[in-house]
């Protein structure tokens, strides 16, 4: 019983966190989520390449113009494709990506559950 209560609290906290998540500097958060396209596996934030520096300037400019985080991503996606974003969006291309692990978790839970239901019989 105690364990179930813990689980409920955890799920509640998870939902809470998603709505409360605040990054101190939005520019940093955005550039950390952008791939440096001429580097091999670095974010725009981490990279010092010409492309990365230009994107950093672009992001701070757009933020000053009042673009939201999402709007900046849409702008860059239009130019470079979804590949530039490190966090995959949740659209028809990525349903399986996000849901498959969750499904695996539930499947595992079902198996664990089954082991104990079986024993009770």
């Amino acid at each position, binding site marked *: 019983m105690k364990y179930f209560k813990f689980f409920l609290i955890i799920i509640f906290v998870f939902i809470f966190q998603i709505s409360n998540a605040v990054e101190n500097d939005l520019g940093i958060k955005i550039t950390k989520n952008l791939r440096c*396209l*001429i580097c091999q596996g670095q974010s725009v934030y981490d990279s010092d390449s*010409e*492309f990365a*520096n*230009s*994107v950093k*300037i*672009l992001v701070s*400019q757009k933020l000053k113009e009042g673009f939201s985080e999402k709007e900046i991503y849409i702008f860059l996606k239009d*130019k*470079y*494709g979804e*590949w530039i974003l490190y966090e995959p969006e949740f659209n028809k291309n990525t349903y399986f990506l996000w849901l498959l692990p969750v499904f695996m978790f539930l499947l595992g839970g079902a198996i664990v559950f089954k082991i104990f239901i079986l024993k009770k019989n």
Partner: protein
Amino acid sequence: MKIKIIPFFIIILFLVFFGVFFKGLKNSNIYVPSYNFEKEIPSFTVSLFDSNNEINSDEIFNENKYYLMNIWSSWCVPCREEHQYLMELSKVKNLEIIGLNYKDNIANAKNFLDELKNPYSSIISDPDGLIAIEWGAYGVPESFLIYNKKIIKKIVGPLNDNLVIEISELIK
């Protein structure tokens, strides 16, 4: 009978995985943002290289001819190598070459052109690299073949013999 379904299903699953990986090997993994359709050129205001006048993109790509916009810098080594092809193409009648000077120092850029000659009918200044981003470029050199304010072909990397032939074919 029921028990046999699981092995069967698993084997099919792995066969599918094999197929996907096999096909994946064939695909190139060099990512080039692809244009499957003709894209409109971006609209922007920018200052010219040699004057400091501001000009709008509409004015540059106005006429009924082909344009090749070439992104270049004096510090870019492959740009030196492709320059001869640009000089070659600058002689073609219905093709005009526009230069985008990318994150460059004006003095160095001028020296570059003095040394290797100037194929550009006009040159746009892009000190921060923002205009290049508008075009969806990410490196230098890159070139865009334009007609009727639409991008027909995007070339990533320096020009070579094959590409020059391709361009010549396209502008006939």
